[in-house]
């Protein structure tokens, strides 16, 4: 059931007549604008006052900190540190050594032969003649023995030692 149904036509007409009445002017619009400006100014002033108060608090706090807190002391100390010896520098070869010609190959040395080797015997024979041949029974030996003796000489075996023909 709607509100219009609830209300009779007389009441609706009464509403319409009431709505013709205009409420009286009760407020001064200029005064309202003035108060609005006052409120805005007060808000701005409060903002600046709060900012100034905060700055003063920070300044006072900083001053108190500088008074209360100990200052940082700068202490100078001489510390002797044993310097470690530098690692030995490898010696460079001298200029003369560096310039000196290096042998191209291995140095030849006369070969040392055993006392009764073939080459030793030959060398002795070449230097002193056949008389330098070791005494042996070569003359009494047969061709086979001579052959064997020669082989032994060529191998460098001792032909004058304990060998007995």
């Amino acid at each position: 059931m709607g509100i219009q149904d609830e209300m009779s036509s007389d009441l609706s007409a009464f509403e319409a007549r009431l709505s013709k009445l205009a409420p009286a002017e009760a407020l001064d619009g200029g005064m309202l604008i003035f108060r609005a400006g006052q409120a805005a100014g007060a808000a701005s002033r409060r903002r600046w006052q709060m900012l100034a108060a905060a700055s003063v608090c920070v300044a006072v706090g900083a001053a108190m900190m500088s008074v209360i807190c100990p200052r940082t002391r700068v202490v100078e100390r001489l510390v002797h540190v044993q310097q470690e010896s530098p690692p030995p520098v490898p010696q460079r070869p001298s200029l003369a050594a560096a310039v000196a010609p290096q042998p191209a190959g291995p140095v030849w040395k006369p070969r040392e032969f055993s006392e009764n080797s073939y080459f030793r015997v030959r060398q002795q024979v070449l230097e002193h003649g056949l008389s330098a041949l070791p005494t042996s029974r070569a003359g009494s030996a047969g061709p086979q023995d001579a052959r064997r003796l020669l082989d032994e000489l060529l191998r460098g075996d001792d032909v004058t030692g304990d060998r007995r023909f």
Partner: protein
Amino acid sequence: MSDERDDLAKWFEANSRPLALYARQWLDDHAAADVVQDAFLKLLGQKHRPADARAWLFRAVRNAALNELRRRRTHARHGAAIAAGRGEWFEQQLDDVIDAKAVQEALAELPPEQSELIVMRIWGQMTYEQMAEVAGVPLSTARERYVAAIESLRRKMVTPWESKTK
């Protein structure tokens, strides 16, 4: 800032008179004017504008008026005699089809919970939903209370001659 002033001027133009009449249901003229001014200033100071500025203004005026009434610990409504001592609630025009003075006296005799609904509906041009929200009552209660109020006001407006003829 200029937009805010424009908004304030617009709201003031549209709502100041109904709001003042609304506040007069509880307070005298001077206190009612102060309450309405404070409501406008409070609206101007809002960070987020209310979606329904008119309902917000009526609610702010209602709360402030009831607080002021409690603070003074006096009842603002003392019948027709007190209402007559107040300033004019309506602008009387020659071609008015209804007597403004009689309406003022009849409204003053109604209990505030009824007269506030009439003011909101007739001169505030508010919906029943808005009226219910401002008055803090269910929608059905607002409707029933309004119908009862307008009937009561009409009965009070009927002159003795009219009542005899009926």
